[in-house]
């Protein structure tokens, strides 16, 4: 899926997290401070994009996690769905190092994450792909892939069945 000279793999101890900088402090801090510990505890899983000639160098990253969309009890309208919850897979904190930005690596990372999400959802139920853009530019980026706003907040979504159908069609 991600053609050379880059490849994606799960974040490991040998990766140099301190050298990574995407320009958004929040995302850099997250990678440096929280990821290692929480990954060991099986609370998160982060994928990184590396250059095969610099195996420790992180040039991009993203996280796949679990979420549940919950229907608020703000109205008495009858429930239409069997459950008041919908399982979802958020693709989070997608970031590309400043040194390689603007070359389509964000697109490749997103495609890689969506492909894994589509595959995982065949074995562990998940009806929605979610993203949470940090700003307008990020929202424009996700809109290019068909992500639509959830209306009530800044998150955007794609039905998982449509993601699977698209990947099946492109095969």
């Amino acid at each position: 899926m991600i053609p050379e000279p880059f490849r994606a793999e799960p974040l490991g101890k040998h990766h140099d997290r301190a050298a990574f900088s995407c320009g958004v402090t929040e995302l850099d801090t997250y990678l440096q401070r929280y990821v290692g510990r929480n990954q060991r505890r099986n609370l998160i899983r982060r994928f990184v994009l590396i250059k095969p000639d610099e195996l420790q160098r992180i040039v991009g990253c993203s996280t796949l996690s679990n979420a549940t969309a919950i229907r608020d009890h703000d109205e008495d309208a009858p429930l239409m769905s069997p459950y008041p919850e919908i399982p979802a897979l958020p693709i989070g904190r997608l970031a590309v190092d400043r040194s390689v930005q603007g070359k389509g690596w964000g697109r490749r990372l997103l495609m890689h994450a969506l492909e894994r999400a589509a595959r995982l959802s065949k074995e562990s139920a998940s009806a929605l792909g979610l993203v949470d853009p940090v700003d307008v530019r990020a929202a424009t980026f996700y809109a290019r892939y068909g992500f639509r706003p959830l209306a009530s907040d800044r998150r955007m979504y794609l039905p998982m069945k449509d993601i699977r159908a698209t990947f099946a069609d492109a095969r």
Partner: protein
Amino acid sequence: MKNARLDVRLAPEHKKLIEEAARLSGATTSAFMQMTLPERARAVVREHQAVERVVLPSATFDRLWRELDGRPAKVVPELLTQLRKTRS
């Protein structure tokens, strides 16, 4: 009941900036901070949930449910285009 206090030192230019932002939103500096800080704190806490809880208004949830339940799966044209670009 608003009886807790939080004292912070900040750069003079940041104080000015906050005061200006408060003025622009038609709030006092105190009210502005009482409103924006918990908002930001909630967002950070939310982002650090292992399993995120996305609470949706019932109208949004029901619209989403109708889309998931009420129609067959379809190819997303934008996604397909980007996918082909990535694979070629």
